[in-house]
């Protein structure tokens, strides 16, 4: 198992390095590089939200808020405080800082709100996201309603991709651990989980904090990619967009979230040329997909190479 994981990590990182080399040498132009970076960033956002919504079954609508917290606080570190550190240290440090601020906010807010269930939690987290946004609208130090300008463009594809690979690995490991199973049991039946002696609040908060942390990291990546942080970049619609990726990929399926993040980011770009019709085509495609696959593209299943080996085994059996 460990060997397999090692092969997976080295393989994934190698792919990233090759793509980055292609970008640096100009084979892939900056436009595609930016789209690939956005895809990786949305993959982090979608998987981290999936941990909260899909795995633990807590309906959260505040992801854009955590993203904003991470984005602004990491940008404060790189823009406002001139620490004497080289860029390659400064950037991950600022992302870590942004993630930790978002996680701390997730902890503070999660503790009381995660006692709520279903719709009530959705409304509470929706409110939270808006409160964070309005806080940045009124905070003069980070530019208030004009937004924060002059953020260095540290983000490149390799950084985003490697961070995406590692954050996904951490989330997958968490899900496979006993903590993760506790989270899944809460999703399946909260009362039954409680009867089995699982501290439901503890595990819900744990999943919420981890999800918030990675949303914060993604926010930092976003800020250093666009080089401008504007409160309007973190509206409720952004939370919905991320939720859409999770639902489309299948609640509870990490690979589904990644596939949906890549698919939806690519789709918005591909439809750009249709201008006015763009949102109509986009919505229509979503309706069609949800009609035929109400459980999402992958449901709760994961996509892996083992699936193909099962196919071949079955085929072999059939031949006999």
């Amino acid at each position, binding site marked *: 198992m460990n060997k397999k994981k090692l092969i997976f990590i080295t393989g994934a990182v190698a792919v990233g390095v090759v793509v980055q080399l292609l970008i640096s040498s*100009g084979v892939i*132009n*900056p*436009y*595609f590089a*930016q*789209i690939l970076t*956005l895809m990786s960033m949305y993959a982090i956002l979608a998987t981290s939200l999936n941990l909260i919504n899909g795995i633990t079954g807590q309906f959260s609508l505040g992801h854009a808020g955590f993203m904003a917290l991470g984005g602004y606080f990491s940008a404060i570190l790189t823009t406002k405080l001139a620490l004497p550190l080289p860029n390659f240290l400064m950037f991950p440090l600022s992302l870590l800082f942004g993630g930790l601020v978002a996680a701390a906010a997730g902890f503070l807010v999660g503790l009381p709100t995660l006692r709520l269930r279903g719709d009530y939690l959705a409304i509470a987290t929706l409110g939270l996201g808006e409160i964070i946004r309005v806080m940045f*609208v*009124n905070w003069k130090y980070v530019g*208030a*309603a*004009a*937004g924060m*300008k002059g953020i260095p*463009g540290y983000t490149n594809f390799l950084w985003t991709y490697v961070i995406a690979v590692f954050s996904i690995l951490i989330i997958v490991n968490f899900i496979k651990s006993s903590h993760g199973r506790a989270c899944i049991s809460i999703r399946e039946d909260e009362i039954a989980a409680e009867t089995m002696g699982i501290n439901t609040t503890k595990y819900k908060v744990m999943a919420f904090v981890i999800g918030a942390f990675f949303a914060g990291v993604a926010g930092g990546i*976003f800020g250093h*990619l*666009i*080089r*401008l942080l*504007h409160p*309007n*970049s973190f509206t409720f619609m952004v939370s919905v967009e991320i939720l859409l990726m999770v639902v489309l990929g299948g609640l509870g399926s990490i690979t589904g979230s990644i*596939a949906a993040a*890549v*698919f939806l980011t*690519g*789709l*918005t*770009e*591909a439809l*750009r*040329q249709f*201008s*006015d019709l*763009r*949102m109509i085509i986009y919505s229509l495609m979503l309706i069609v997909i949800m009609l035929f*696959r109400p459980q999402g*593209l*992958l449901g709760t*299943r994961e*996509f892996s190479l083992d*699936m193909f080996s099962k*196919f071949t085994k*079955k085929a072999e059996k059939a031949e006999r």
Partner: protein
Amino acid sequence: MKRKLFLIIALLMVASLVLSACTSKDPAPVNNGGDKPTGETIKIGGILEMTGNIASFGQSSRNGIVLAFEEINAKGGVLGKQIEFVLEDNKSIQVESATAAQKLIQQNGVAAILGAVASSNTLAAAPIAQDAKIPLISPSSTNPAVTEVGDYIFRSCFIDPFQGVVMSKFAIENLGAKTAAIMTDNNSDYSIGLTEVFKEAFTAAGGKIVSEVAYVSGDTDFNSILTSVKNAGPEVVFIPGYYDSVGLILDQAKNNVGFSSDIVFLGTDGWDSPTLFDLAGDSANGTYFSNHYSPDADSAIVKDFIASYKAKFNGAIPDALAATAYDAAYMIAAAIESAGTTDAAALRDAIAAVQLEGVSGNIKLNEKRDPVKSAVVIKIDGGAQTYYSTVEPN
């Protein structure tokens, strides 16, 4: 088995869509420097808010640009080549504006970019244009920070502080006001910036601000803040906000709080929308606001512009956004003509030196790449906008 097959098919569909998304782009060669115009046309990119919450602004701007380029092409284009306008939608959000800028520069190889409308969106696109050294002209981003991004970023409209000064000057000189109240939209940088400029200019000229109140865009009940404004007894009330809130404020001031008609309401270009009349009705009469241009202005170029705009867009009267976008399109055409090339550095210098008579006033850029030009004051009378006066910059 059947379900698995379906799953595989679904995944293949996803993969093919993503792949087609990546490959169906123009195979146009990357034109980083834009040394020579490639082919028969000169490509000019546009990043506009075609969808999203300020789509009506983006569509007016598109109309202005399309009209200008059609006129230029009908006269033989520039440098003997036709102009091709490549428009990209930014959904009125920042990240899409940045991606649109990348696409126009890398995929379409445009010589220059026009857009975006909102300052926040232009600020997201500008660093990319600046890095790639592709000139960008925003037709209507009035925030001073926009052109501070770099020496390849220009605009064809005046900046916010100028409007604040214009209205303060107007209040003192034309209306003889000595006391003023200000109502600020705390959610909008535009409103906060204008409030500061107006306050400074008004007090510097010997006036007194007797009341300052704040609201947030989206509010619908302004009775309590209007009452406190009324009790302070100002001669003029300055509201640098957007038409949706302002319409409600004007209505409630006259009908609920009972402002007398001696108190004059003043505003800025955010008031420029028919929605204002829908919301305020007769209460809007007797108010003044500053704008980029007036369809009633008495000049030949404005009359020609309105006539051809009406002819092309089913009798619609062009608004200020269409006018500044039209001017921005003419600015880039004039600059390419005088530079004699689309080489980025030469084009940049040509735009900086451009001088032309536009529908929104005479355009001449200062060292900050902002136009120094006149503003018009519009009076709302009988439920319509009427031209009142032109205020020259000093």
